[in-house]
């Protein structure tokens, strides 16, 4: 009992320690939204101001803060909560999808995910061998680029027991590629005149990290952002199966522990926030909310994404991205180009030439 009493202030202190970083995330996000509004105001009065959406402003502000200044330690715990706001936004986006649409689009997306997974895992493994990367680093890059970036790599870390250096290298490579996607995907989408749905599904299938996939989708439009979330969510659902496959392989090589309880392993690796997304979608489909309430939930998801977008900028250290060994990055870039082209082809085939 006394131990429990002693633990309470510690927990409270840990929660209080989150507040400065959360304030920074929301502050930068709100500033980004404010700059977008300022742009509209000034443009209407024929005063030049860069026409940039709030999503990009939030990322730019985050990048400027984290790359021009040393962020004081007091902000760091709270900055880590960007993951919570991202997941909250994704769960709330469920209100914009009728469950039948989730099943239909999710079903279609799952077929595309299967093809993407099989081919990208194969190609990344071949590239890793070609460039003589350490085998476990190749596994981590393959898992990270085919499923869901850093989350998948962290999930695989405990299962295939790589060196700490391999994990760090794989995470750095995946973050670098995610940062590149933020700037290249919207440009390619506009160049090819992709529709909101096609572009969103494409980014959800091709961009690795959930945060970067959501941002890359939202940079093209709100609707594209929602479809990116849907496709990324379907892809993330496979994380347990892929990590389990690699865990079994490395255990068979005598280089990782044997997975004894496979169903429990799958459940532990399954991203639970997907269940929240489905629950909100079912409630919306069942008519639980009025039209106005659905609009409020949709707006709420945008407010939740705002600090997450700022967090993407804050955690990207441009200096670190270029300070890496060249081979993992080259393997990652080649693999990602392949995945981007493959998924673009799949989207063109599945969604009427990408026009929708």
């Amino acid at each position: 009992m006394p131990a429990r009493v002693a633990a309470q202030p510690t927990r409270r202190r840990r929660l209080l320690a989150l507040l400065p970083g959360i304030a920074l995330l929301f502050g930068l996000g709100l500033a980004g939204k404010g700059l977008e509004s300022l742009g509209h105001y000034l443009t209407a009065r024929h005063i030049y101001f860069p026409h940039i959406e709030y999503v990009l402003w939030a990322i730019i502000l985050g990048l400027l803060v984290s790359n021009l200044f040393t962020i004081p330690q007091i902000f760091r715990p709270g900055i880590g909560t960007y993951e919570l706001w991202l997941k909250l936004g994704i769960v709330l986006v469920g209100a914009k999808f009728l469950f039948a649409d989730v099943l239909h689009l999710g079903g279609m997306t799952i077929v595309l995910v299967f093809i993407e997974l099989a081919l990208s895992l194969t190609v990344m493994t071949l590239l890793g061998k070609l460039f003589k990367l350490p085998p476990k680093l190749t596994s981590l890059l393959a898992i990270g680029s085919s499923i869901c970036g850093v989350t998948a790599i962290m999930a695989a870390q405990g299962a295939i027991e790589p060196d700490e250096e391999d994990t760090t290298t794989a995470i750095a490579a995946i973050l670098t590629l995610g940062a590149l996607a933020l700037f290249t995907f919207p440009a390619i989408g506009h160049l090819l005149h992709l529709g909101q749905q096609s572009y969103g599904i494409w980014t959800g299938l091709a961009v690795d990290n959930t945060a970067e996939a959501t941002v890359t989708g939202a940079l093209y439009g709100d609707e594209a952002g929602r479809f990116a979330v849907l496709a990324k969510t379907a892809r993330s659902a496979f994380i347990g199966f892929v990590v389990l496959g690699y865990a079994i392989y490395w255990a068979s090589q005598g280089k990782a522990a044997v997975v004894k309880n496979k169903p429990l392993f799958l459940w532990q690796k399954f991203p639970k926030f997907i269940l929240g997304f489905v629950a909100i979608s079912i409630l919306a489909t069942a008519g639980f909310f009025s039209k106005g309430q659905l609009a409020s939930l949709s707006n709420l998801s945008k407010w939740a994404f705002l600090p997450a977008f700022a967090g993407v900028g804050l955690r990207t250290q441009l200096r670190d991205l270029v300070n890496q060994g060249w081979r993992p990055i080259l393997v990652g870039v080649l693999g990602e180009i392949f995945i981007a082209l493959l998924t673009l082809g799949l989207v063109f085939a599945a969604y009427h030439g990408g026009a929708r």
Partner: protein
Amino acid sequence: MSASIQSSIHSHRQPAMRPLPVKKNQKLAFNADVVAIVIALALAALIRLNVIHHIGW
């Protein structure tokens, strides 16, 4: 950025990889999935019960 990565590719000729200074994600003291679902359902309930009338953008 791609230009700087290009220059990095050319300038890093050593075959061995070195430890990277990239920071790992800050570990949260709670399960973000569970907390996200709880907050989302709580907010949805408050909106459904008209405790929160309208959220604009």
